[in-house]
């Protein structure tokens, strides 16, 4: 299990980030006294550091240099400053990447995973693999597989993303907008394409013997429905 140290002086952001990281199976180290960042670092010896730029007393650049004197672990900056100069400064001071606030959890998690993978090899990434499970239906996000009672189907990336949203929100409804947003990375996705993907995911579920598991909620979105337990 990877340990991540969070150096962020806003208590709420700190708490939210921590919660999210714990949810995805990371261990977190928190800094309370911002004059002793380095001490906390050496004691906890984390695998990765999330570092804010604006900190009381010394700024993040300073602490980044200090950490670099003793360790090579990945350091990710999180900051509200987005000028080119700040990003250059961060990299010059030894950071590995720079994330600007406000950020999405997805982005932070993706960057953390990629840094960990780069620093500690593929093995570390699999250790924190995200899985979602609802009533025996299990989604392995990194492997893009869906399993049910030992049976397994392969998924495409978009199908996996769709299922992630549905399983994560279960038993609530996921709005169409939300799904569109999720699917939309490099290539934009319109309503029709979303319909196509939903149909495909239904097909995949059918391969596992699950019928009608995705319910359409009119005017709002889709919902995962556990239809299979009654029959067991």
């Amino acid at each position: 299990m990877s340990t991540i140290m969070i150096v962020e002086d806003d208590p709420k952001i700190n708490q939210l980030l921590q919660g999210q990281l714990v949810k995805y199976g990371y261990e977190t180290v928190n800094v309370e006294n911002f004059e002793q960042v380095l001490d906390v670092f050496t004691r906890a010896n984390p695998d990765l550091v999330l570092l804010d730029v604006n900190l009381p007393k010394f700024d993040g650049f300073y602490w980044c240099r200090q950490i670099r004197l003793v360790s090579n672990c990945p350091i990710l900056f999180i900051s509200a400053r987005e000028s080119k100069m700040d990003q250059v400064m961060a990299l010059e001071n030894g950071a590995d990447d720079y994330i600007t606030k406000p950020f999405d959890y997805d982005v932070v998690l993706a960057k953390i995973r990629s840094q960990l993978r780069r620093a500690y090899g593929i093995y570390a990434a699999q250790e924190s693999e995200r899985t979602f499970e609802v009533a025996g239906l299990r989604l392995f996000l990194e492997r893009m597989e869906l399993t049910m009672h030992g049976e397994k189907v392969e998924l495409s990336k978009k199908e996996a993303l769709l299922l992630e949203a549905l399983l994560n929100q279960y038993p609530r409804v996921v709005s169409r907008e939300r799904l569109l947003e999720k699917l939309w990375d490099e290539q934009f996705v319109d309503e029709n394409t979303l319909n196509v993907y939903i149909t495909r995911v239904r097909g995949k579920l059918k391969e596992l013997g699950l019928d009608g598991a995705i319910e359409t909620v009119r005017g709002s979105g889709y919902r995962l429905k556990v239809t299979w337990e009654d029959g067991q």
Partner: protein
Amino acid sequence: MRLFLRDQWAFLTMFFIQLFLLILIFALDGYWNPSLISYAVFLCFFFGGCFLAFRYLSNRLVYQRLSAPVRTLEELTLAHGNSPLGRAMDQTFQDQYRLFKEQLHAYETKQRDHTTFIQQWVHQMKTPISVIHLLLQDEDDPRVESVREEVDRIKRGLETVLYSARLDRFEQDFLIEPVSLRRLAQNVVSENKRLFIRNQIYPELAVDEHWVVESDEKWLSFVLNQLLTNAVRYSDKKGSKVTIRSFARGKHVVLEVEDSGIGIPSEDIQRVYQPYFTGENGRKYPESTGMGLYLVKEICGRLSHEVELESKVGVGTKVRIIFFAVVPTLQERKLDES
């Protein structure tokens, strides 16, 4: 010289009256001796001329400066010669210049403090927005969706404030480097995906992979952001498209954002780049600040790109950015070499 003569007209008038009186007194006295009179007249002219020449030469700089238009502030500090008048003018001008500089400096400091304050304030606002943003991320409720929309709107507003405040210090805050138009457009589109989805407008990306231009990525992103926001905001029909395309025009590259929205009335087109100008569309859409296109024009001007706008009411609007500095890509370079 003309100013000098005009300045001396009282003296000249008096000189001629005296001359006339002199001759008149001689004549009335019955002492009419032409050679003596002409000698006296000659003497008067000679000394009068000397006086004028001396006056002119000693104050020449003053007259020259007074009759030439002032072009730079630094002219105020130039010396006006060694005559008492010249020295007095030097003194006055310098005092004025100093006073002026002091006041200007005070305003500059004030302005800079204000800009710094605005920037800091915007950054401070980003923390609560980040918190709200994070809090809302896992929620999925129609009401939360609406809050998210408002948060996006605040974010957009803050961005505009930040960039317009930064515009004053543009010279210290840009970095020209090769920018791939396709990557840039892709990033900006995906930054705005929620805006597109919410308005049910779909982007169409027709930017060729190989176009690379000399620009500042950050500022150019902001420009494209403004253009896309405008395009979405003024697209009336749900399900319509916003097209981002690039093409060559002679040696230059053009990036075009086209919407099929409400368009801009022809009487407003001339004025869209003016700050705070919102025009007829601004009255229909209360969110318009009139700053978007002004900032676009300003920023592009500083990056040496040109902006073109073409619009028809009810048909749509096309905004083009023209890049003069196109970076030959590796591929093309190879083609050239072979």
